[in-house]
């Protein structure tokens, strides 16, 4: 009997060890592939990763070409996206979780928001082309691009906000009400601050997805060659701020990268690799910020 039991136990132990090995192998495989890809990219890119590369405009000569306009374009488009999508997304998420009555309508809205998060980005691009460019005549501008990417990330931000608001224990809200706080005071001083970690993480991850988006921006007509910057947002004459840059034509890093990859001259491929390194660097550093924020805020609100 006991021999039988021992055999059974040994079998389970083997199974357990086998799974651990399999899991570790998978991790190594995934990280290894990523590591090799990045190493290869960096090796191709190394000779081009100089300050001049970031600070010069594209050119037909690969050694003079840089990504100034694409980098600035990407940053400005992301700025518009963040300014539009973050307040709207967080407000919508908090409303749905804290204020909205739970009925069929809100249930339907919730399901649909989750579905919207899975809509392919090219579909958003087509919608933006039809609505923003053709109907509303907003032009093929930074504003249009920013709004298009906001459509794309809004559902993701709403879902992330709702998840983290829902994770706040009910006792915190009840404690707040017990002290005589109104609903708004509870939401603004208790619920939102304590769910900030999750909200920010979700939002930053959504933004880093937006950074790499190409399809919807090509659809609305991002350009391939631009050798100037949009007008500066800060001017010397009153009122000192200008929103003219919103209407400017633009290009973004993924489009510049794609353009170079399809060139006959192999030296452009190295430029494309360098652009890839910058893009990966941007995405990774955004993710790093998300991790740090989550860690800090969690510490602050859980102890």
């Amino acid at each position, binding site marked *: 009997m006991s021999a039988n039991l021992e055999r059974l136990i040994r079998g389970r132990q083997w199974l357990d060890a086998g799974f651990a090995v399999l899991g570790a192998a998978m991790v190594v495989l995934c990280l290894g592939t990523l590591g090799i890809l990045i190493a290869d990219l960096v090796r191709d890119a190394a000779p081009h990763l100089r300050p001049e590369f970031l600070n010069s405009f594209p050119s*037909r000569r690969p050694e003079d070409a840089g990504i100034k306009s694409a980098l600035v374009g990407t940053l400005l488009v992301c700025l518009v996206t963040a300014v539009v999508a973050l307040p709207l997304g967080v407000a919508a998420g908090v409303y749905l979780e804290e204020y909205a009555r739970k009925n069929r309508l809100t249930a339907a809205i919730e399901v649909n928001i989750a579905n919207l998060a899975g809509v392919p980005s090219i579909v958003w691009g087509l919608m933006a082309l039809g609505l923003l460019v053709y109907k509303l005549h907003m032009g093929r501008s930074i504003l249009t691009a920013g709004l298009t990417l906001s459509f794309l990330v809004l559902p993701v931000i709403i879902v992330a906000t709702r998840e983290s608001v829902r994770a706040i224990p009910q006792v915190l809200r009840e404690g707040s009400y017990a002290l005589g706080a109104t609903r708004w005071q509870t939401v603004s001083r208790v619920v939102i601050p304590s769910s900030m970690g999750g909200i920010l993480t979700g939002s930053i991850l959504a933004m880093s997805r937006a950074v790499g988006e190409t399809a919807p921006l090509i659809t609305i007509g991002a350009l391939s060659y631009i*050798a100037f910057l949009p007008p500066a947002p800060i001017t010397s004459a009153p009122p000192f701020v*200008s929103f*003219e840059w919103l209407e400017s034509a633009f290009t973004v890093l993924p489009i510049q990268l794609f353009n170079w990859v*399809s060139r*006959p001259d192999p030296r452009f491929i190295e430029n494309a690799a360098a652009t890839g390194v910058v893009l990966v660097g941007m995405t990774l550093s955004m993710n790093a910020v998300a991790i740090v924020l989550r860690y800090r805020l969690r510490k602050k609100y859980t102890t």
Partner: protein
Amino acid sequence: MSLLAQIQARAPQAAAALVSLLVLNCSVFAQATVTVDGSSTVFPITEAVAEEFQKANAGVRVTVGVSGTGGGFKKFLRGEIDICDASRPIQVAEMIEAKKQGIEYVELPVAFDGLTVVINPKNEFLKELTVADLKKIWEPAAQGTITKWNQVRPEWPDAKITLYGAGSDSGTFDYFTEATVGKAKSSRTDFTASEDDNVLVKGVAADKNALGYFGYSYYAPNASKVKAVPIVNAAGKAIAPSATSIEDGSYNPLSRPLFIYVNKKSLARAEVRNFVDFYLKNGPKLVAEVRYVPLPADAYAKSTARFQKGEIGTAFAGHSEIGLHIDELFKRPLVTEPRPDSNGPKEGEKKAAEAKADKPAEKPAQKP
């Protein structure tokens, strides 16, 4: 309550600031901008011109997009852009749309591109190809049936053919199919297709039995990796693509002119006029620099004259033509009315068909 009061107190100020902002923004002097869009084949040329032009003319901006020739014409005919890069002449439907929208255009040839048929450098038996061979290999009927070299010509080896070609959205695909099969976009589909010509270069370079085609500008820098096949021209001579043979027209029928179309209304603006002038003046040098083949010098002079006079219309009446010589292109009258397709074979086509002695029929057989 206090918040509400604050908002109420500040509202007029905020509104005033907003209004002043809007007004100021509207009154800001718009900077002179030339907008170009269209073919990816023409893009490197326009990019080079735009780069040099902006160096020479500080304060003028040029933007260049890549939407493909068809996409470029769509924007051009909506009046969104000043100049359309095109790797083929304007087509019938586009001419009709232009009439409807009241858009007049100046057609300017700017360079040549020679479609290059390439094989692996290890391929020793293939010394030349006729248009008839290419038709046999690429026509839709060849799908699944012509899979070995000895099926094209019995003296060639009994080895598999692997085909690489342009993606179906490109002007290159349209031109190659029209020049070989006889009908634009009519091609077998069992080949590796890519819009990215580097993929085709890599494919052919790695495969001993490969046959592929792409623009001369991609062949030139990759001549060590792939081998160009001489093509038997209308005069019956096998000619390899080179800057000389493409320019003098002996490399036919696979060389084609590239164009820019300028909106006549935009030509009223000094920056657009200067840009086009700069394009044609610096064309020969810059075209060669980005590995395309410049037109003969007098062609640029004729183009300049055409644009300075503001002569509108197209020399093609809405139909691509194969193997058209550049001189003839300038002799033709410019028209804005498309010639209907039903009038039988067009002049150019007749000539091309007569010239192509080795082509079995004058008109290609209808697709089954």
